[in-house]
C-alpha cells in the first residue's frame, strides 16, 4: 500500500505512557509495527489494551512519550484519523438508529467505506438492516460493529474485543471473514483479545502487554519458539532447569512440569532427552498466561486456609 511505502512504520510508540487519575494504564511502552499484518494485542483484563487502542485512534492523549501513526501523531490529525477505524464491541451509536442508517453514517465519514460489502456482511451474519441498534443483543451488536470496522477498509483497523458475546459458530465465521478480507485488502489489523487460542491461527504477530508494559512483540511463530515445556522426574527437572529462566513449574505426585523461556535448540532437545525429560512446545495461549501471571499456587491455596 502506498502508505506503507512512504513510511514503513505504521505504528510507532516510544516510551508511551498514559496515566489516569487513579492508575497508570501504559508505562513506557515502546514498539513499532511495520507493514500489513494481523496483529493480536493480547493482555489480561486491565492490561492497557483498550487504552492503547484509543491512543492509536486519537481518542486519548498520551501523558508522556510519543505515538505516531504513519509518522504523525493521530490526535486532532484528520490526515491520519481518516485512515484509522476503531471498532469495539459496544460502539456508542445512537440506539434509535437503524443498522442501515449507522452504515450510512460510516459511508459519509469514511471515504473508502465499502457499503456493498457491509450490506453483504449484514446479510451473511443474519442481521436485519431495519433493526434498531439499541435492540441488538450483545453478540449481534459485536458482529455489527465488526462489520462497520471491516468495511471501512482503513489502512489501520483497530478491533477492540470484537467477539465479545458471540457464540462459537459466529466467532469462527467472523475470523474467517477477517482473514479472507485481509488477504483481499492487506492492511494493518490490530485485534485485541485476552483469549489467544481462538485467534492465534489468524494472527501473524502478537503484541503482549501486561500492567501497561510490553511483555512480548513479534511473530507468533517466534513466540512459540521462545519457550519449551519439560516434563519428568522432579530432581532431574530441577537440575536441568538450574540457571535457566523458568516461567512456570508445577510439582505433582506423578507429574512435574517446568516451562523454560528459552529457544529449544537441538542441543537442548538432545540434553533433555538424555536426562529422561520430555520436551514439548508451549501453546502461545499458555505462554502468554505464564508471561503475565502474577499469582502463585501458594496464593491460591491460601484462599482456603483457616486463620485460627
Amino acid at each position, binding site marked *: 500500500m502506498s502508505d506503507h511505502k512512504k513510511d514503513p512504520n505504521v505504528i510507532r510508540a516510544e516510551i508511551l505512557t498514559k496515566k489516569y487519575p487513579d492508575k497508570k494504564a501504559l508505562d513506557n511502552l515502546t514498539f513499532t509495527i511495520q507493514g500489513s499484518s494481523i496483529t493480536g494485542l493480547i493482555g489480561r483484563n486491565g492490561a492497557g489494551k483498550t487504552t492503547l487502542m484509543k491512543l492509536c485512534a*486519537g*481518542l486519548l*492523549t498520551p501523558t508522556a512519550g510519543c505515538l505516531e501513526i504513519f509518522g504523525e*501523531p*493521530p*490526535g*486532532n*490529525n*484528520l*490526515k491520519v*484519523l*481518516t485512515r*484509522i*477505524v*476503531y*471498532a469495539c464491541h459496544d*460502539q*456508542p*451509536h*445512537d440506539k434509535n*438508529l437503524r443498522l442501515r*442508517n449507522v452504515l*450510512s*453514517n*460510516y459511508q*459519509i*465519514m*469514511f471515504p473508502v467505506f465499502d457499503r456493498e460489502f457491509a450490506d453483504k456482511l449484514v446479510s451473511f451474519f443474519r442481521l436485519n438492516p431495519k433493526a434498531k441498534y439499541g435492540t441488538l443483543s450483545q453478540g449481534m451488536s459485536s458482529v455489527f460493529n465488526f462489520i462497520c470496522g471491516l468495511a471501512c477498509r482503513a489502512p489501520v483497523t483497530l478491533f477492540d474485543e470484537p467477539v465479545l458475546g458471540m457464540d462459537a459458530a459466529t466467532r469462527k465465521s467472523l475470523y474467517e471473514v477477517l482473514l479472507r478480507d485481509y488477504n483481499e485488502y492487506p492492511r494493518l489489523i490490530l485485534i485485541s483479545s485476552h483469549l489467544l487460542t481462538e485467534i492465534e491461527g489468524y494472527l501473524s504477530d502478537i503484541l503482549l502487554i501486561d500492567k501497561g508494559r510490553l511483555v512480548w512483540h513479534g511473530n507468533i511463530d517466534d513466540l512459540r519458539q521462545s519457550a519449551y515445556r519439560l516434563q519428568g522426574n522432579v530432581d532431574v527437572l530441577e537440575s536441568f532447569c538450574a540457571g535457566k529462566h523458568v516461567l512456570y513449574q508445577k510439582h505433582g505426585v506423578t507429574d512435574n512440569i517446568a516451562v523454560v523461556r528459552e529457544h529449544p535448540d537441538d542441543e537442548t532437545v538432545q540434553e533433555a532427552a538424555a536426562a529422561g525429560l520430555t520436551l514439548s512446545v508451549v501453546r502461545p495461549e499458555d505462554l502468554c498466561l505464564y508471561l503475565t501471571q502474577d499469582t502463585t499456587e501458594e496464593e491460591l491455596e491460601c484462599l482456603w486456609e483457616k486463620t485460627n
Partner: protein
Amino acid sequence: MFVGKDELINARKLTGQWLHNTRFNWLFMSVTFAFVFLGNIMTLFNYYSETSRGIRTHQIMDYSRPVAFGLVGALVIMMLLYKTTDTKCVMFPQTGTSRFLAEKARYYCLIGAAGLNLVVYYFVAYALIGLWGQIVGDTMFANRFSIGFTLAGLLAWLLYMSIVLETMLALRLFIMKFRILSAVGLVLLVLLTIIDFAAIESFGATAIGALILERGLGFFLLKGIALWVLLFALSMVINKISLQDQSSRSAKQVITDNVTLAITVVAALVFVIVFIPQSLDSRIPRNLVIPSEEAYELTIPEFDPGPNRFVMNLDASGIPRGSSITITTIDVVKANDATQSVPDSDYYPLPEIVTMLYTVQDEQALLNFTGNEIRLEYWLPTWETGGIDMTRYIQPRFSARLDGNTLCLEYQYTLTSNAFFLPMWSFMEQFDTFKEKGIFYESAMPLFYNTRGERGWILISVD
C-alpha cells in the same frame, strides 16, 4: 490556519450525519410547531359567535419571544448534555475543532429552523386571514404586512440569537473546568435574556449597549455581525486552547502558531468595545420612547381641523321665521352630555368610541330661527391604534336633513368588522432600531384598554 479546509469538510460531514440521523425529530418538531401555530390562528375564527357591535379587533400571538426563550432553554440543555450526546459520533474521524464546529452547526440549525418557522407562521397567518377576508368580506388586516420588515426582523432575530449562542459557547470554558459554576452562569444568562437583554448592559458590556442604542437597521446588522464574529472567534480560541482539543500541542503552542489571528482578535475587540460605542453614545439620545402618559391619554378633542373635515349646508329658507328647530339624532350625542357620560375608567365600550358628538354654536339662533341655511361643519371620527389608522374599518358616514322644523343628524358606521393585528418580532423591540416599528404587543394592546380613539365632531351654526 486556524481552521483547515479538511476540518471544515469534516465538520460538514459530521453535521450532515447529525441532520440525517435526527431528520424525524425535525419533522416532529415542525409538525408540532405547525399545530401550535395553526391552533392559535384558528381560534381567531371563533369571533362569529360573538355579538358585540362595532369593529372587533383580534390580536394574533407573536411567537418570537416564547420561541426565543424556548430556544435558549433548549440550547442550555443541549450544551449541558453535550458530553453525553457527543460520544455518539466519537468513533468517526474528527478533530477538536471540527467537532466544535459541528456542534456549533447543530445549534445554528436549531436557531435557523426556529427563525424560519416564525417567518412561515407570519406568512401563513397573513395568507389565511387574507383569504378568509376575501371569502367573508368583513375581515381584514389592521396593519400592513411588510415583507421587508418581516425579513429584516428575521435577520436581526437570527443575529441576536447567534450572539446569545456564541456567548453561551464561550462559557463552555467553564463547563469544562468548573461544571457547576458554568451551569449557574448559563442559567443567569437565560434569566437575563428572559428579563431583557438590555439588562446585560448594566454589567458594563458596552458593545451590547452600542447594539441596543443603534437606530439604523444597517448599522445594527453590521455591529451585530462584528460582535458575532468576535464572539465566534473567542469561542473558537477557547475551544482551541482547552484541554479537550489538545492531544499533542500545548496551549502556548496554539497561541504562538496563531499569533496573527490572536492579534486580529484583540484588535477587533478593542475596536468594538472602545470606538464604536463612543462614536454612537454622543449622537443617539438614550430615551426615544414616547412617555406612556402621553401615549395613552384619553381626551375629548377640541376643535382641531383635521383631514376628515367636511362642510354641509342645509337649505332652511322654507322654515318660518321665529320658529324653533329641534334636533333628533341617531348615534350622535350632544357634546356636554357625552362628556358627562364618559366613564372615569380607562375602558371605553366600543360603541361609544364610534359615536359622534355635536355642539351648537349659538343655541338661541336655533330656538328663534331667522336664517336661510344651517351650516354643518363636521369631522368624522378617527381611530388610531398602535400607530395604525383604523378609521377605514369603521367606514364612518354622516348624513343630515331637515324634516320640517326638525334637524335629523344620523351617523352610520359598519357594525361588524374584524380587524386582525399581526405583531411581528416583538422580541426585538428591546433594540432601539425596532422601537416604534411594526406592531408589538405594547402598542397594539391599548386598543382594548387605553385607546386613542377620537370621536367625530359636528359643529352646527346658522347662516
